[in-house]
């Protein structure tokens, strides 16, 4: 294997890794605020991309994407208000099952709205055939967009959660909902906000990856599995951890592909199982800390 080939595998790993990371971040936001895993996260990506594709026929691309993000954000909020909030005696388990049901409903609705055909957004810069050369390896300029947008999302999110009042209020809800309520935080709206935020981020992610990965109504579930793996691997609720774990899993997959591509899925599911059994707190958090937090 020569240098350009190694770089090429590396870039391929980084590309898929950053896609996984961006899905994982969506999981994290909702987890942070509510303690539940939203298994409809993959569907948010596809709804966002599909909406943007439909809008892009009538308005310029940036407007279409902004519109799609706005619509999906509202959809996320609506879903929370209609399906999550009214659940009585909401245990984590019950809410997670609700999100699985939601993912199926959204998927079927998309099948009816947009049929089963594969679509994709146009490339943001260049076209399907343009490449950027790095150390003898080639990547699509869209991949740079994916990387750039993931970076912006992670940074923005971290700043939001650390330094704004609303962000802090969301984290407070995650830590101790009763205490947060005593401090005058409207915890219900914080949960709604977390769904809106993760739907919006999901939609943006879906739009950015659409030119590369293409978009089909049932693509959400496979993406969600990978995103979930990464979220667990990086430690639930840890956005920076998700990015590192995403890149790690992406590179691992690229490494397996360089040997035998048929085993790629096997390896990533193995990773998920191993991490769930042996280190459910993730690679980057100390297990005693998270045990305290989760107790």
């Amino acid at each position, binding site marked *: 294997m020569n240098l350009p080939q190694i770089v090429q595998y590396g870039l391929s790993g980084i590309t898929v890794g950053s896609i996984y990371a961006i899905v994982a971040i969506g999981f994290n936001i909702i987890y942070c605020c509510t303690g539940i895993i939203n298994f409809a996260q993959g569907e948010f990506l596809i709804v966002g991309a599909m909406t943007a594709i439909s809008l892009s026929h009538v308005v310029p691309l940036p407007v279409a994407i902004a519109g799609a993000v706005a619509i999906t954000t509202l959809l996320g909020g609506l879903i929370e208000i209609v399906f999550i909030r009214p659940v009585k005696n909401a245990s984590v388990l019950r809410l997670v099952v609700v999100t699985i049901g939601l993912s199926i409903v959204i998927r079927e609705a998309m099948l009816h709205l947009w049929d089963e*055909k594969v679509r994709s957004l146009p490339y943001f810069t260049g076209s399907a055939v343009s*490449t950027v050369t790095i150390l003898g390896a080639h990547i699509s300029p869209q991949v740079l967009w994916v990387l750039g947008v993931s970076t912006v999302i992670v940074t923005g999110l971290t700043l939001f959660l650390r330094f704004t009042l609303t962000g802090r209020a969301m984290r407070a809800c995650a830590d101790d909902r009763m205490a947060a309520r005593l401090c005058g935080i409207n915890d219900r709206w914080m949960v709604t906000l977390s769904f809106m935020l993760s739907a919006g981020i999901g939609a943006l992610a879906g739009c950015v990856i659409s030119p590369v990965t*293409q978009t089909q109504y049932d693509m959400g579930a496979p993406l969600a599995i990978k995103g979930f793996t990464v979220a667990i691997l990086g430690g639930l609720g840890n956005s920076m951890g998700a990015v590192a774990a995403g890149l790690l899993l992406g590179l691992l997959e690229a490494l397996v592909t360089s040997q035998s591509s048929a085993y790629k899925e096997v390896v990533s599911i193995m990773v998920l199982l191993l991490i769930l059994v042996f280190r459910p707190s993730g690679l980057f958090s100390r297990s005693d800390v998270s045990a305290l937090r989760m107790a």
Partner: protein
Amino acid sequence: MRTKVLGILSLCLVGVILAGSGCKKAPPTPAPKPKAQTPAPATPATPVKPATEAKPAAEAAPIKVGAILAVTGGAANLGGPEAKTAEMFVENLNSAGGINGHKIQLIVKDSGSTPPQAISLAKQLIEEDKVLAIIGPSTSGETMAIKNICQEGKTILLSCAAAETIVNPVASYVFKTPQKDSDAARRIYQTMKDMGITKIGVVTSNDGFGVAGGKQLDALKGEYGITIAANEVYDAKETDLTGVLTKVKGAEVQAVVNWSIVPAQSLVAKNMKQIGFNVPLFQSHGFGNIKYVQAGGEAANGTIFPCGRLLVADVLAADHPQKKVLMDYKGGYEKQYKEDASTFGGHAYDALLLLTEALKKAGSADTDKVRDALENLKGVVGTGGIFNLSATDHNGLDQSAFEMLTVMDGKFAVYQKK
């Protein structure tokens, strides 16, 4: 405590999602409808003239023909045009007086793209409706599920699905109209040979279509002096194939063959261009839909693939034997349904064409006589090619049924050697 719950829960979820992923292409369908939709069409949008209604008693009894097609579900892009085509065909036939004085009564059933549904519909058609023949199903999996049922029920099956195993080994009552996988592989290899290509990479998806194609490519490579230097299988739902293609590129091949359906077909083309892998890309006959080309954008230009001639009917020489039947079918379909005709609809057209030719030849609607006549049909010009059936060949098409096509500026064109 929550860690544990989360762990167990997640394991269950992964199980559920993985188990679901196998059948996610086929959304659940309602239980079999107890009543036959005679003779109403399965597609609500279709305006059907009462041509198939029973006529005054003086007329001969209609010949019942069933159709099990994937009108809904994952294979709806196949079954939809097939059902519409079948309805159009029968309507035209009946308004022209039917066959041997009999009208055809078409009973279309929607399989929802699922083999279990196809099985119960086949039993229903054979035992309750007592049809002469069944058109369909649309996919290979469904066809294989009902192959034996039709054989044992002595009902002619004219499948619209591709897999070679449908007619090999031959079951005496089972036929199929789409071209063979092996002939597609042969055409690809022949084209490569003409281009002087000997060392290739093969990438296939891990679904039924990809696996079957991969086997054919592997079995036939020796005949054409081709070496497969890299052979990679990828997940059918893959969203990035640059890793796989990097490996193939590393094997320094002269061309790549991809055998899959959407969405990977377009993805391979895009990813190859992205990693600067500029050797010719060959695709299977599954690429024959302009929508896939649009999904691939600029990257799809230059793709070479074997396909039936329906897609290039307009540019076919006027004296080509298939020109008339193709233009008639395409024109009729596009006029009636206001959408592009596809090769899939063509398969249903051919199935009904073979059946009606056999009925004419047999001069009766006796199942065994029609079956014998079917087996001896020669030179029937259909949309998929010219059918020459025999007791050992229940498909009747050969390599000449395929034309090598390419994509130029986002449109299909006949491939010409440079």
